[in-house]
């Protein structure tokens, strides 16, 4: 069981998809980083991850971690959003056979898991076909 502050810290990313974007090179960092590298003069500005993108690769997980064992099989994908941000997310509201590289997807706010048998509910992003 994790402590409450560790959930708070993730809220801006998981609930509001907050990222940073470099004003110089236009690269988007999700989750936000504090530097591109120690010698970069990049200006990192707040940015919201693009809500649509496409699947780059995926898997169907048949044997999952204990906290998701009721959800198997579920589809997990690496997606590239239209601003270049990359994220790993479950693909839902879609049969596994329909998922393939190039599938257009959209971010949705969903329940991800719960922390133990009686723990708090944990939310975040999944993607659905756009």
């Amino acid at each position: 069981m994790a402590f409450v502050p560790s959930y708070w810290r993730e809220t801006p990313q998981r609930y509001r998809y907050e990222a940073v974007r470099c004003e110089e090179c236009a690269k988007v960092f999700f989750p936000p980083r504090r530097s591109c590298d120690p010698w970069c003069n990049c200006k990192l500005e707040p940015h919201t991850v693009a809500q649509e993108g496409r699947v780059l690769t995926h898997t169907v997980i048949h044997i999952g971690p204990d906290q998701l064992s009721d959800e198997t099989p579920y589809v997990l994908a690496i997606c590239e959003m239209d601003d270049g941000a990359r994220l790993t997310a479950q693909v839902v509201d879609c049969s596994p056979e329909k998922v393939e590289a190039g599938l257009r997807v959209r971010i949705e706010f969903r329940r991800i898991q719960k922390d133990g048998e009686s723990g708090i509910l944990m939310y975040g992003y999944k993607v659905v076909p756009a």
Partner: protein
Amino acid sequence: MRDVAVIGIGIQRWGELWERSLRDLFVEAALNAIRDAGVERIDSMYVGCMSPGLFIGQEHLGSLLADYLGVCPIPALRVESACASGGMAVRAGFIEVASGLSDIVLVGGVEKMTDVSSGGATYALATAADAEYEVYQGATFPGLYAMVARDYMRRYGLTREQLAQVAVKNHDNGALNPHAQFPSKLSLEAVMTSTMVADPLRLMDCSPITDGAAVAILCPLNMANELSKQPPVKISGVGAATDHIALHDRKDFCEFSATVAACERAYKMAGVGPEQIDFAEVHDCFTIAELCVIEALGFFPRGTAGQATWAGETARTGKKPINTSGGLKSKGHPVGATGVGQIHELVTQLRGAAGARQVPGVKRGLAQNMGGSGGSTVVHILEVV
């Protein structure tokens, strides 16, 4: 910088070793290595171990293992780089000997994984991925490598049979290794019909959960003959590198950039290229990993390792034997011990002492040990002198 040699190696059979604790595993392998080398003291030691805290509720392995081996007050340090912990411990020992700080350094690796449930082991292993942005979303290690496999299949036309052949070939080798956890042959059909874990990877594409340890003794090359009767094996090249921890941040999921960077450093130090490597032990935590790694090491052009494996080029009798020990798949994968186990196999082969699985006439071998989904890698090149 002084040249460094391996003068002793020790291991015991890997597997589900219910009756042995982490300290038992390590001390048995360490005593075997010390006796093999015939040394009468150790100056310092490094122990690779990924997660004793999560697997057995124990940290501070430097003190614990120096104590139980009976070598206090020598300095002893645990090294952690997920599944590359063992190889990184060898590198740390190499640096200490090469620098002149110590002469006889024990480098070991150990992991005790079966004191927790399979769910507990999955949880501990998953900490090698990005906990907040991969694992939280439902990623598992088979799942991450499955996404690499699917990308590879789509881009290069790799077939399911070619992928399965990696496991078949490694079990052919492991069947001849008395230290292997699963020393049995495996048919292509058994791989192809095993339980689906993360599509397209099945259970027999995955390395097992293992208890085990392995240890090597290092010293300066020019002192090897005075300290040990064993024929010294020189560590001629060392390289380590990192990459993004999250698979999704990699530019190319099939490239394994940390392995590319690590082997470039090791080749440069050894003054050789991939064509001068006679055989290699590589990190086949999943079948797809072996294919990507042997391409990253420069043994095969991109996208061709599946065909080469199918054609027998990586078999014991092929032109580039890979994982003569059985690899992680058959020999077992006690994560912190794996990288040192690879060194054990290289030295055994280079001494000509590998028995039924001996590759005739080998002079130079390479070990590649990798953490997580490729976020860290360490490469060693060993050769007879």
